[in-house]
């Protein structure tokens, strides 16, 4: 049994196909989605989606701003930004970090600031991991 996985950005459909497993960075923790997973809705934090294809080949994609939906038809990840990790360079990430920092300083109330700060933390963690 395979898991049908779709990765969609506002501009186009980036990935559609049957895979063995997908690991997604949920807001409240990473999740590994295997075929037959119970229906779930989750928001995503900036991070890396790891797709394990049938046969074991892995593909890593950086996503930011989005959510994931699991239903009996499969897993759908909607992301505002999705870039394969291979194409992600330090420069691009530095830009993302800079944007996030601006968001933090622009935040009007505590709630938005907390969210922006969380975003920034995730991005910085990713930056140091790369």
């Amino acid at each position, binding site marked *: 049994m395979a898991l049908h996985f779709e990765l969609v950005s*506002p*501009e*186009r*459909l980036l990935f559609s196909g049957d895979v063995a497993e997908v690991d997604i960075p949920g807001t409240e923790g990473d999740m590994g989605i295997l075929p037959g997973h*119970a*229906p*779930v*809705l989750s928001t995503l934090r900036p991070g890396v989606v790891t797709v394990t294809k049938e046969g074991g080949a892995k593909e890593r994609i950086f996503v930011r701003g989005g959510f994931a939906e699991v239903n009996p038809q499969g897993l759908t990840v*909607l992301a*505002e930004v999705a870039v394969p990790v291979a194409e992600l360079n330090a420069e691009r990430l530095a830009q993302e970090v800079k944007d996030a920092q601006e968001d933090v300083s622009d935040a009007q109330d505590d709630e938005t600031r907390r969210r922006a700060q969380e975003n920034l933390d995730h991005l910085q963690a990713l930056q140091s991991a790369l």
Partner: protein
Amino acid sequence: MPSLKDLRNRITSVKSTRKITKAMQMVAAAKLRRAQESALAARPYSERMATVLANLSSSMEGRDDAPQLLAGNGKDQTHLLVVCTAERGLCGGFNSSIARLAREHADRLMAQGKTVKIITVGKKGNDILKRLYGRFIIDTVDLRAARTLAFSHAQAIAQKVLKLFEDGQFDVCTLFFAEFKSVISQKPTALQLIPASVKGGKTPDLGGAIYDSEPDEGEILADLLPRNIAVQIFRALLENAASEQGARMSAMDSATRNAGDMINKLSIRYNRQRQAQITKELIEIISGAEAL
């Protein structure tokens, strides 16, 4: 009666006009294909988004803590109209039909004593609306510098709208754009953005199971609704781009045909006049010879 030279000049000028309209038609056809492709490519995202929103909002219905973006802020006094048009003209009735729809909407609201505010996207819409509604236009967005529409353009507009909403500048927001039906038909459409109309998304069959939400439904919804605004605006901009090229293509097609008809008519007139002149000259020569 124009002289032969005048007619000749006229024919050359119409011929070069025809060359231009023909070229514009072909450029529009090429751009249309690309615009259509990107409109199609953007569809899965907005469809999935609509499905999930429909799902979540049905569970929020009737609850007091439903987000304002979904349920509205309880007022109906100030309306914001976001009017999306093209940056360029020469596309038939495309810009004016969108502006007309927005104008009718604004007039109806004002007759009910509501306050109207307008944001225009695209230079042409601003030009048309400025004359009558100049004092209501609070902002204009210029996309002329953008060679291809990116999601970030839509996001920038969405952020403006959301900020105005948070500041309590308006209560209801409606988006105006032309929906792309086919090359020859574009339908001016009004879409309510705030409070969000999320009907129509189909719910997938879960086989009796219910969604597990992480974090809870209210929080996901609060995260998704602002994103949805950007997605809807992006969709509207893409539909608009495809419609604009379609409208331009058919407008330029008929312009090219009209120029052809005009050239035919002018050539017939030119030939008749030339013949009449030759006949006249012959008569003059013959009658001159007879007089001798």
